[in-house]
């Protein structure tokens, strides 16, 4: 039978990556070697080893064998779960992950690292036996301790005589003598003689579930002793068995006719590694990660339910239209039904939309899970004591958001560990517990996902940040900033506040990149900090990237959409608040702030700049800490809009974040407030 193993490889890789993640989590939680935890870790390694061997990744299987052996000894209490052992196992997990990635992507894992970790594990095991040399796990071989050298070939015997006397309970393990004889028969010409002398004399002693018979079998042909032995492999300890060459002295006891002589060679029985991943075609390239995702089956079921309801509603609407055609006189009643039907349709559509959206939502645990390891490693390197607490790991975020969240979060958590939490002695001197706390929490608030990174470390020194910012020319010598504003300066490019630049973080690049990444996801990040008490970073992200709440507005005869989240307020101008400076954008004074007024129609080149009417309608919007006041002609409704990128459908248009299709089929541009602010400041002299 030829079966292409490649079709199972993706599933194997996916579950192996999950297994590695599990191993890592449990290893980090392994306090002193709890047996149940060790069992779980062992099982993960065990599955990877077995699967790797089966699916053609012999080297991975061989590597895992050593890991498994070490874990086996740990769970049996033969080896201590010392920190260095746990660290070695964590390193082995990394190495395995790299090997599996290489297997998936058709690349090569770092052979030196693999060999080194392997050697370390072997050294840890303290003997030479564990990891098998060839990279493949031990193969099936003949039976131990039995002479397998003599065969029926080479002028040997013309067959075998087998004395087979099962013990009474042989059949209770599901072994069936008849079936075994049938297998023997495939090896040559078989004659069977049944010995009934063990049958009990009286019926009371006869247990039909016991085996009371014995057999002498003669197999003629060129089967080897190994082949014959194999047939009895499973029952060796449940029978008396003697296999001797047919030429030996003992006389054949009977001439029982052969059953059905049909000699056939049994297939080769040595394990043969299946075809490796070479035949996997395109499935192995990079990006496999992002092209597929696991979806909770419940979500799919809900979706199917909803489609079912949609179909019902559709047939109801069809029915109404038919009724109307047949009997227009009942218009009134039918219109009532039509309204109900449309209401139903609206509800179905909304639910369907929510359902479909939820498919893209994945628990943030997928990102959070990497942090216990990270904190463990860094705090070990730095000699700090840190306890990391994860909260709200099951908060769901859009898959794309999550994929882009990893790097910024790593940076922020590193910062908290590296710069936030003090050395144990320093903490003790400050009257704090020696173990620092870092908390990573996610939750939903409004239409946003909020992620907080908190530490109880030394906090930020606002004076020092301000001094650095002045040095770097980010803040003018006479510019006054409040504490909150000063703290937000850490997100400016080129501002590092670490006393020492360490290996881990803080080279003055990073926080600005973090902010840029979060902005790119349509979110924002804020810092709060109190000296001596710690810091808190708050990241706010939209639930999804493809749908947003928008405010529709009219400029000239065009409809535009701006993200509701960007709107600060809408107002009618008071003439005395408008400041007009020559060659500059007019400014609007809103409380203590001057905000540039942007004439969108002119900005987009629709009309010539026109003077501001006495009582104009302004929408004040904010993005990237910049505010602009947009001149609009009318405010329309608010609604959820589906964002379509212009780049893929048309081309990039400055000042827009995309487009959407309105209910009446009209296309409306979605304004990019940050972009407009940039355009406006670049066109100062020409606008207005």
């Amino acid at each position, binding site marked *: *039978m*030829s*079966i292409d*193993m490649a*079709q*199972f*490889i993706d*599933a*194997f890789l996916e*579950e192996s990556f999950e297994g590695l993640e599990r191993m890592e989590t449990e290893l980090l939680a392994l306090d002193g070697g709890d047996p149940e935890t060790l069992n*779980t870790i*062992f*099982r993960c390694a*065990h*599955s990877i*080893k*077995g*699967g*790797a*061997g*089966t*699916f053609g990744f012999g080297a991975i*299987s061989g590597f895992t064998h050593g890991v498994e052996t070490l874990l086996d000894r740990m769970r049996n209490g033969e080896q201590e779960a010392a920190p260095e052992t746990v660290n070695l196992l964590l390193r082995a997990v990394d190495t395995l992950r790299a090997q599996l990635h290489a297997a998936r992507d058709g690349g090569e894992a770092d052979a030196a690292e693999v060999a080194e970790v392997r050697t370390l594990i072997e050294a840890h095991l303290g003997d030479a036996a564990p990891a098998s040399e060839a990279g*493949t*796990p*031990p*193969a*099936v*071989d003949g*039976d*131990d301790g039995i002479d397998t050298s003599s065969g029926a070939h080479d002028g040997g015997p013309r067959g075998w005589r087998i004395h087979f006397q099962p013990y009474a309970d042989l*059949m*209770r*393990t*599901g*072994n*069936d003598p008849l*079936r*075994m004889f*049938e*297998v023997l028969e495939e090896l040559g010409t078989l004659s069977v003689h049944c010995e009934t002398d063990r049958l009990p004399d009286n019926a009371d002693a006869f247990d039909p*579930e016991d085996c009371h018979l014995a057999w002498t079998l003669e197999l003629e042909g060129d089967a080897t002793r190994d082949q014959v032995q194999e*047939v009895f*492999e*499973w029952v060796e*300890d*449940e029978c008396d068995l003697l296999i001797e060459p047919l030429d030996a002295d003992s006389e054949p006891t009977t001439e029982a006719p052969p059953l059905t002589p049909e000699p056939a060679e*049994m*297939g080769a*029985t040595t*394990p*043969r*590694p*299946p075809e490796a991943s070479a035949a996997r075609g395109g499935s192995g390239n990079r990006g496999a990660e992002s092209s597929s995702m696991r979806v909770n089956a419940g979500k799919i079921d809900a979706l199917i339910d909803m489609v079912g309801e949609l179909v019902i509603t559709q047939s109801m609407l069809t029915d109404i239209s038919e009724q109307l055609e047949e009997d227009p006189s009942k218009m009134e009643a039918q219109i009532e039904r039509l309204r109900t039907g449309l209401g139903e349709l609206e509800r179905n559509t909304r639910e369907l939309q929510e359902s479909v959206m939820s498919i893209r939502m994945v628990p943030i645990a997928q990102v959070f899970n990497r942090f216990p390891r990270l904190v463990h490693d860094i705090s070990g390197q730095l000699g700090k004591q840190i306890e990391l607490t994860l909260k709200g790991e099951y908060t769901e975020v859009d898959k794309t958001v999550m994929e882009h969240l990893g790097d910024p979060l790593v940076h922020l958590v590193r910062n908290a560990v590296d710069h936030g939490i003090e050395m144990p002695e320093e903490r003790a001197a400050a009257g704090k517990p020696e173990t620092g706390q870092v908390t990573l929490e996610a939750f939903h608030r409004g239409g946003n996902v909020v992620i907080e990174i908190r530490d109880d470390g030394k906090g930020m020194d606002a004076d020092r940040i301000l001094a650095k910012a002045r040095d770097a020319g980010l803040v003018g010598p006479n510019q006054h900033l409040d504490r909150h504003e000063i703290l937000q300066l850490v997100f400016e490019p080129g501002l590092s506040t670490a006393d020492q630049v360490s290996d881990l973080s803080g080279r003055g690049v990073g926080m600005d990149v973090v902010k840029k990444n979060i902005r790119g996801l349509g979110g924002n990040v804020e810092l709060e900090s109190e000296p001596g008490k710690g810091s808190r970073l708050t990241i706010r992200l939209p639930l999804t990237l493809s749908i947003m709440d928008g405010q529709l507005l009219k400029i000239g005869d065009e409809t535009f959409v701006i993200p509701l989240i960007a709107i600060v307020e809408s107002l009618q101008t008071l003439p005395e608040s408008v400041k007009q400076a020559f060659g500059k954008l007019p400014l609007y004074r809103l409380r203590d702030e001057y905000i540039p007024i942007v004439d969108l129609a002119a900005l987009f080149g629709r009309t010539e700049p026109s003077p501001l009417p006495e009582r104009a309608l302004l929408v004040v919007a904010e993005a990237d800490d910049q505010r602009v006041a947009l001149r609009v002609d009318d405010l329309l409704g608010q609604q959820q809009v589906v964002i379509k990128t212009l780049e893929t459908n048309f081309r990039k248009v400055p000042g827009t974040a995309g487009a959407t299709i309105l209910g009446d089929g009209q296309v409306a541009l979605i304004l990019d407030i940050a972009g407009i602010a940039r355009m406006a400041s670049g066109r100062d002299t020409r606008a207005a």
Partner: protein
Amino acid sequence: MAKVLVVDDSASMRQMVAFTLKQAGHEVIEGRDGKDGLSKAQGAKADLVITDVNMPAMDGLQLTRELRKLGDYKFTPILVLTTEAGPEKKQEGKAAGATGWLVKPFDPDQMMNTVNRVLR
């Protein structure tokens, strides 16, 4: 055609074993672990059980012991999948009441050879 219960906590192994059996014309019931396997076994009488050993919830050896207690499975062939070729592990399986074993790694041909030793 026989009805085969395949129990393994690894989905890829289970798929591979199940696919191979189906290709050979057998009907397959799948169990995710020992516990699940036991309830599937009770739901439908299988002609052959193939089970992994190391599994959460209930391991393959315990599953074998539990199955042997059921009237329906007293004489049913049960094959355990093991990664150990050593006699010790094999004996554990036998002691629990398994018919035989299949040592990982194996390929579909080897598996069917073994399956054919116990299935009629």
